[in-house]
């Protein structure tokens, strides 16, 4: 025991000390992962495939938000109503950009293959190609360096949870995440669009016999998932800055979250996102920061091997 026990007890002391501040950061990350993960899960529901290019939808939201912030924020940091307006505007613009890229993606990389009833391997390869094309195009047009986003507020702790300060940035993510995820949940559960998404996810052929327009539903699913992904891209960029490769790691983690919650399961993706965010954040105490991505990947492999249906199970096409 000796040295190792000492090592562990030392780390546990840090763990106790840092728990709440890490927890808060983890929940914020978790909301972002959840918002990206629902995009994976929705598309998986209707098409039965993983949208490999979802990371670029996220990236486009980040860049769109960046350009709006850059255009509207001058030298002085806005406050009050202006801050709220800018954040909402950023989310809307990021979401619009994400939805736009998702639509284009569906039109160009998926629909021709769907028309031909192509094998799934072709979809995967086409999506990977689209992803590479998009982020390298962004790198070419917008430069290949990370840019920090002009801030619409002065970041400061708003309130405290067990002594841990909750930054304004986190509050923004909490509010935006809760509102959007709740709205999505209601849309899928109660509206006509949600019903057609669920119908296509359950059985596309029968749904089309019942008068559901499959092409339209798939396109709208991409738009909904893309809007949330794009909005998450803006929120992520607000804290971390934007760069053409920004989508890769968050999207890989969001995918892990989607699998963790059970792919195709909307609430599963949200819960999986939160869980992954918190676990990953707390693991900082035990592993070096450089290996954080390894933790998420380890969770992914473990879930796939031991419980491939996720925590809540795969539930395609049911009202979450």
């Amino acid at each position, binding site marked *: 025991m000796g040295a190792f026990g000492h090592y562990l007890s030392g780390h546990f002391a840090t763990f106790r000390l840092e728990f709440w501040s890490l927890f808060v950061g983890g929940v914020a990350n978790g909301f972002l992962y959840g918002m990206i993960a629902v995009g994976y899960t929705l598309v998986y529901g209707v098409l039965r495939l993983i949208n490999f290019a979802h990371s670029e939808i996220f990236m486009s939201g980040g860049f769109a938000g960046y350009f709006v912030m850059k255009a509207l924020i001058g030298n002085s940091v806005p406050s009050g109503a202006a801050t709220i307006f800018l954040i909402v505007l950023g989310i809307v613009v990021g979401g619009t950009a994400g939805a736009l890229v998702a639509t284009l993606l569906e039109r160009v*990389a998926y629909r021709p293959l769907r028309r*031909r009833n192509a*094998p799934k391997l072709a979809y995967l*390869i086409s999506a990977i*190609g689209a992803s590479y*094309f998009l982020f*390298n195009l962004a790198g*070419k*047009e917008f430069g290949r360096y990370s840019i920090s986003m002009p801030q619409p507020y002065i970041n400061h702790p708003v309130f405290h949870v067990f002594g841990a300060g909750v930054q304004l940035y986190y509050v923004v993510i909490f509010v935006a995440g809760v509102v959007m995820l709740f709205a999505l949940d209601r849309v899928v559960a109660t509206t006509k669009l949600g019903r057609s998404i669920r119908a296509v996810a359950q059985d596309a052929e029968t749904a089309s016999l019942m008068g559901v327009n499959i092409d339209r539903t798939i396109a709208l699913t991409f738009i909904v998932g893309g809007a949330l992904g794009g909005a998450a891209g803006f929120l992520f960029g607000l804290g971390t800055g934007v760069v053409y490769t920004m989508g890769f790691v968050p999207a890989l983690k969001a995918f892990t979250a989607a699998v963790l919650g059970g792919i195709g399961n909307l609430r599963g993706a949200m819960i999986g996102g939160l869980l992954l965010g918190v676990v990953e954040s707390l693991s900082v105490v035990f592993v070096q920061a450089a290996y954080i991505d390894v933790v998420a990947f380890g969770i992914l492999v473990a879930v796939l091997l031991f419980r491939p249906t996720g925590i809540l199970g795969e539930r395609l096409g049911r009202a979450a």
Partner: protein
Amino acid sequence: MRAFFRNPFVRRFSLCFLVVELVALMTGPPGSTQAPTAGFRGSFFEASSFYGLFRTQRWVVFFALAIIMFLVWSGWLNKGASIRSTATKALAVPRAVTQRRPVRWSLIGVALIVALLLPRIVNDAFWHSAMTEQIGVFVLLATGLNVVVGFAGLLDLGYVAFYAIGAYTTAWMTGSLPTPAPFHGHFDPFVAIPVAIVIVMVAGILLGAPTLRLRGDYLAIVTLGFGEIVTIFANNLYGITGGSQGSGPIPHPVLHIGPLHYVWSLKPVPYYYLLLVFLVIFLVAFSLLEHSRIGRAWTAIREDEVAAESVGINPLKYKVMAFAIGASTAGFAGVVTASQSNNVFPSSFTLQSSINILVLVIFGGMGSIFGVVVGAIIIQVAYSYLLHTPPQGYQSADLYMYLGALLVVMMIFRPSGLIPSRRRKREIVLSEAGEGHMDEVLTGDTP
């Protein structure tokens, strides 16, 4: 208004226009963080002379191209079928001739002689290093990945990890890493070849045995993550790999068999021949493998895993085998790269190169050894040419943009590749017609 956009001619023309403008953007000048619109402005409104005939702006040139594309497309819709049948008829005789065995063997012989004489034919320092570092190594990697993607039908997005492991094994065996070499020896890279291949195959088995049970799309993500993890470890384990600083200098291999004595040096051409020898060995082995018991088992699993299992094929065993065999070429390529470039850096084993190798396989034709070699040569020559004489506005990272676009275009128009394997093409056609069970493993929609 709606009727106007529904008009097939309008739709076709606007599609042509969009594609051409996208090409204009891709080939245009780059933008930057400070001037994010510079790329767009330069792509469309930059002055450009049309072969000196008249001066105009770029978008006019591309608009003209769109009209040409529209005309060609319309012409193809009218006459395409007859052109295609004429071409098939005209090509029937040469096709039949190349099918004959003696002709095939002599063609292979000619290709081999050309490959042997290539450094003499193209006597240029840049192309000497290009044909070793860019073309030779990547052809080798592509043939290896073809075993995994083409033969066994497994999408591996972390192939470059095996390449990295091979390179780091070389550095380790030659005593160039912070961690001491086995038995504190400083082995020759030649000794590292078998060791690297074995280690890489073991890594393939270790990664494959648990993960190859997974569905194909999950496997793609897991291998993608594996590739990233290997880079993260290489970057951060300072005490073992030297971190981002890379390894120490790696010695060049020395051949010493009886009277034969040769020392490799920084010159690329001797490495080109070394690669060529091993490439031929791997190509022969893989084409024998394709029609062996193992190769047929791969085909069976790829086409219908359930049926294959019911006739006594253990899918997991053969999938792991494909993984390990595919990895072995990457291990060897790693040895050559490490000793030729004298150093190993984590930054040379990025996800981008994994995708690059995947494009070579897809472009040439999954499962077709000949196709993959030809496809890899075409793409890598194009890449080297762009590196050698970059057109205005081209940055070397733009390559991946073109490769990504190429993947999408290939999947839409020619999913079986440039020179398709006949079996693979038939599988795709059958699957599109709703027959056969290909890909059920991938989607998990087992009946």
